[in-house]
């Protein structure tokens, strides 16, 4: 079972992701963060298998959130789900991300990507 920390500032998108992931027997939502600061705090506390990260949330710049997650939860894979492209993160932070998916990604691809990222 892959434990996922959902980091997304839009409440309706967060609710959808919770429903989508909880409906998959191989995935489990272990926490939800609504901004970058909460993402860093919860990643350290919960040590999830995967951090599903929206970029462009309130709080620290996204590249700092990526680097911070790497530091506080070094074994967690980071999967970005965002309406922004990888250029928003810059090359160094992008290299630390297991996958970068657009928000238009279909459910099957999202779930498969999270399972694969959690499996290392």
């Amino acid at each position, binding site marked *: 079972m892959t434990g996922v920390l959902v980091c997304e500032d*839009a409440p*309706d*998108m967060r609710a*959808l*992701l919770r*429903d*989508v992931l909880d*409906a998959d027997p191989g995935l489990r939502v272990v926490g939800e963060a609504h901004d970058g600061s909460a993402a860093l705090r919860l990643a350290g506390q919960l040590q999830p298998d995967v951090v599903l990260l929206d970029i*462009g949330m309130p709080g620290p710049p996204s590249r700092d959130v990526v680097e911070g997650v790497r530091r506080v939860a070094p074994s967690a894979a980071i999967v970005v789900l*965002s*309406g*922004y*492209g*990888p*250029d928003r993160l810059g*090359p160094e932070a992008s290299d630390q991300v297991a996958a970068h998916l*657009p*928000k*238009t*990604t*279909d*459910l099957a691809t999202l779930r498969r990507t999270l399972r694969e990222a959690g499996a290392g």
Partner: protein
Amino acid sequence: MIRTAAPIRHEGHARPDDAQALNAFAARAAHSLGTGVGLAAGYAALLRESSAERLGAEGLAALDGLEGGLDRVRLFVEDLLELAVVEAAPVHRAPVRVDAAVAAAIDSLAEPIAEAGVGVEIGPLPDIVADAGLLERLFRHLLRGALAAIEPGSGRIAVSGTRHPGGARLQVTDNGPALAAVDVHSLFEPFALPRGSGRLAGAGVSMAICRRIAERHGGSTSAHSHRRGGCAVAVLLPGAA
């Protein structure tokens, strides 16, 4: 390719300021629209998963229509995002196999190619110096533009390339309907009226993406169409040889 005496030809170039403004707009629009489309498509998919039996044939047909419409908007949003990405991505020039880029692009379009029953003829292709990722995107959009235009079942697409001392010329030709002169002239403009009206037509930015990829390599794009049908889109990449 069918040739007549009077091909219509156009070369595309964008002003840098225009490209930057468009990039900023595309990134913002893709972000805003992407969240809405993601939500709608996500709940439609959940509905299919959890309630297919209760929906019945009529409900499922309506859901098919809903998802089909969302799929078109999804492609539109992803095109916008790609336009922004192509503008911002660093260009890493290195020796690259054009045939591998074409194969990867064809692989990414395997489903629509099979649906259209189209044969893609690949001629000899040179090895060149370019950004491998951008080159694959270039062929994906060139092929998608051709696929959107051709008639299913009778379509033909040909990919060719030549290398010369000043660079390389890559070309994708199709036997789709002829383009009016006004459409040839606007082909490489963002949000141009796309060739074809199916799902693959997307946001009408495929050819604009091709042009930006060429320009980011210091090159250019051109197109010519013939009154009897068909269109050839060429990409010139100086220094690629």
